[in-house]
């Protein structure tokens, strides 16, 4: 059937099961938006800024496991997506970003709103395409989805020139190509099982790859059979329920005392879908420290990149965990999780912990937790219990301040659940414009704004490493967040230092759910609270600080 390129694009998205798109129209995508209008079957969420759209598509992808889709026009529209695409790339989140561009006759002439977005996004996408000929369009869209969702997932950008959108071509419907499962290397899994069986103190270390592989069931089974403690990286939060008795909580720079102890004492680390980033393997050379390390990952380039390991297993985490379950022998419990109560120490004076614990109780069951970046992010990762997978959205690799508002909108649409956004007054100010989107779209969202008047994480580093010279980390904003929220059509609630947390949060969640509306809770906390425990960059786990005086 002959149709315009723009219609071919929309039809190809429908083929891939796309039901929600986050985006922003403009001159170079007029035809695409016209096709979207005429199609009428895909839900389009108009954000306040393209960055919000990219983060929303990312949040949507994280909670659903599907490929997130965002649209932007050429030039500034396209460049506004860049931070969102880079965020998704660093966390291996499947995304297809579609941008328009000037027509072939104007390409390369520095035309109005022309930018080489394919060139700009080359290092932050798995792959990208410039479509210059309508004949290639359908194939490119189908390939983009396959690339984004296969292997180690990631973002793909399609730059569609204006002439391609208007040109007519034959469209033949096609079903999405099923993803080829990676062949499971039985020999390697057997070798891994032998190492685990020979070890006395195995520790499971779970990363974002386990989340991407939906490995919850086999991993819980494996941990049960081995009776081994489990720890996770920031990206692996939620894969194993935080309520699981074997779960020690997060590992890394701000990980729990229990996780650090278990790591030090273990003799075999089974790392599943993790890349030993510098926030976990703070010292690449000291991390393994003579222990056996088994590295299971879907990306061959991750092996021996940061930490030298004893055995590499190129496999999907789920398939590998299932294979291991059959081959490993039951062990005696070697680590008593109870002693360290899987919680950070020195928490008494931290108001944020109190708020987060209460929020976890008040939030409707299975609500996604979204964070921005900084102290509040670490507090949430440490203390907020998540008991199901695909319920945690955070910018782990890139550490994108301003990620949260967009991602929360995406997570709400993806999960169909009320969401909890934990943010700080620094981060919130970066993309608070998206509150208007959340109001327009009726997103039930409780925003816990950890308002301490400072850029807390940077300030904490200035305290430790720069003798307390607080250069540009004190925010002197006079913003009244309650009035701000209300002017946007949302509800604002003040949670002052002496207010009853439970009462205020009950009100917040009650309002959000009842009215399908965002509620901003201005949580006043001290600017002097720290994220503890902490291991300094480059240091060994033995040097974990539990108090600031340490």
């Amino acid at each position, binding site marked *: 059937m002959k149709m315009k390129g723009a219609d071919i694009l929309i039809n190809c998205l429908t083929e891939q099961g796309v039901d929600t798109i986050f985006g922003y129209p403009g001159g170079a995508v007029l035809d695409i938006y016209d096709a979207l209008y005429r199609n009428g079957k895909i839900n389009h969420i108009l954000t306040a800024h393209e960055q919000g759209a990219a983060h929303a598509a990312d949040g949507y992808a994280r909670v659903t496991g599907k490929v997130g889709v965002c649209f932007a026009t050429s030039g500034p529209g396209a460049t506004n997506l860049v931070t969102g695409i880079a965020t998704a790339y660093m966390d291996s989140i499947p995304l297809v970003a579609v941008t328009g561009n000037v027509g072939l006759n104007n390409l390369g002439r520095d035309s109005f709103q022309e930018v080489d977005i394919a*060139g700009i996004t*080359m290092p932050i996408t798995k792959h990208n395409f410039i479509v210059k000929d309508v004949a290639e369009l359908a194939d490119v869209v189908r390939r983009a989805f396959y690339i984004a969702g296969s292997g180690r997932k990631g973002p793909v950008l399609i730059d569609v020139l204006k002439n391609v959108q208007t040109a007519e071509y034959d469209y033949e419907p096609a079903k999405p190509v099923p993803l080829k499962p990676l062949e499971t290397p039985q020999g390697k899994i057997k070798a891994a099982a032998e190492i685990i069986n020979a070890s006395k103190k195995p520790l499971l270390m779970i990363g974002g790859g386990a989340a991407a592989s939906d490995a919850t069931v086999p991993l819980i089974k494996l941990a049960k059979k081995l009776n081994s403690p489990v720890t996770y990286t920031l990206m692996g939060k939620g894969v194993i329920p935080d309520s699981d008795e074997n779960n020690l909580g997060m590992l890394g720079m701000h990980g729990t005392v229990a996780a650090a102890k278990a790591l030090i004492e273990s003799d075999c680390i089974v790392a599943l879908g993790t890349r030993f980033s510098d926030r976990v393997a703070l010292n690449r050379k000291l991390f393994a420290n003579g222990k056996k390390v088994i590295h299971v990952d879907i990306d*061959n380039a991750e092996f021996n990149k940061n930490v030298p390991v004893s055995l590499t297993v190129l496999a999907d985490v789920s398939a590998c965990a299932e294979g291991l379950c059959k081959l490993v022998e039951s062990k005696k419990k070697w680590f008593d999780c109870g002693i360290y109560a899987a919680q950070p120490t020195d928490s008494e004076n931290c108001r944020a912990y109190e708020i987060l614990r209460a929020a976890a109780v008040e939030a409707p069951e299975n609500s996604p937790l979204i964070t921005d970046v900084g102290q509040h992010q670490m507090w949430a990762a440490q203390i907020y219990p998540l008991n199901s997978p695909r319920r945690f959205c955070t910018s782990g690799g890139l550490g994108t301040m301003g990620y949260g508002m967009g991602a929360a909108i995406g997570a709400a649409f993806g999960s169909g659940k009320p969401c909890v956004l934990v943010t700080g007054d620094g981060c919130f100010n970066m993309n608070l414009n998206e509150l208007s989107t959340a109001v327009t779209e009726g997103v039930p969202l409780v925003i816990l704004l950890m308002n301490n008047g400072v850029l807390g994480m940077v300030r904490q580093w200035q305290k430790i490493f720069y003798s307390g010279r607080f250069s540009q980390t004190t925010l002197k904003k006079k913003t009244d967040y309650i009035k701000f929220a209300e002017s946007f059509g949302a509800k604002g609630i003040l949670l002052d230092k002496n207010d009853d947390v439970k009462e205020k949060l009950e009100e917040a969640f009650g309002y959000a759910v009842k009215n399908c509306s965002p509620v901003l809770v201005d949580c006043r906390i001290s600017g002097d609270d720290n994220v503890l425990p902490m291991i300094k960059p480059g240091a060994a786990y033995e040097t974990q600080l539990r108090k600031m005086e340490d």
Partner: protein
Amino acid sequence: MEGQLKKYTIGALVSNKSGVLTRISGLFARRGYNIESIAACATEDPELSRMTVVLVGDEYTLYQMIRQMDKLEDVKKIGCANELDCVYRELLLAKVAATAEVRSQITLINEIYKAKVVDLSIDTMILELTGDPEKLDAYLKVIEPFGILEMQRTGTTVLARGKHTLKDRDCYGDHVN
């Protein structure tokens, strides 16, 4: 992990499309790989180009570079050449200052190296030499005293001896597991 620096030659079959060279050279730049040369050309298969990259680095860098390159959508086959089993060739063009008095000296050197004179003017010569890169290095040293006005080398090209071809290869090579 960081070890001795060595020279490695990597061959890759890549999509014959615009932008592929940018993708690959961009990867080298952002990951900090030290490249000595890149040679790229079309092949017998119109869909594919062939690239030969000479890397100066340790084994860690070699492993990383091959695996990172292999992840690119446009890289179809990649492998590291084994010195003993391959033919290495490079072409050199050098324009030297050569007045009548020194011409015969240069011609004598050319005879030994089997280099050719491909252009001659009153006071210059363009010399052409094909051979393995070390031979070109040696030749350049000898003609340098005459004064090299400008020069160009194609970068190393490589093919495996015997019936082995890159497209039939099923591993990264003897160096890399």
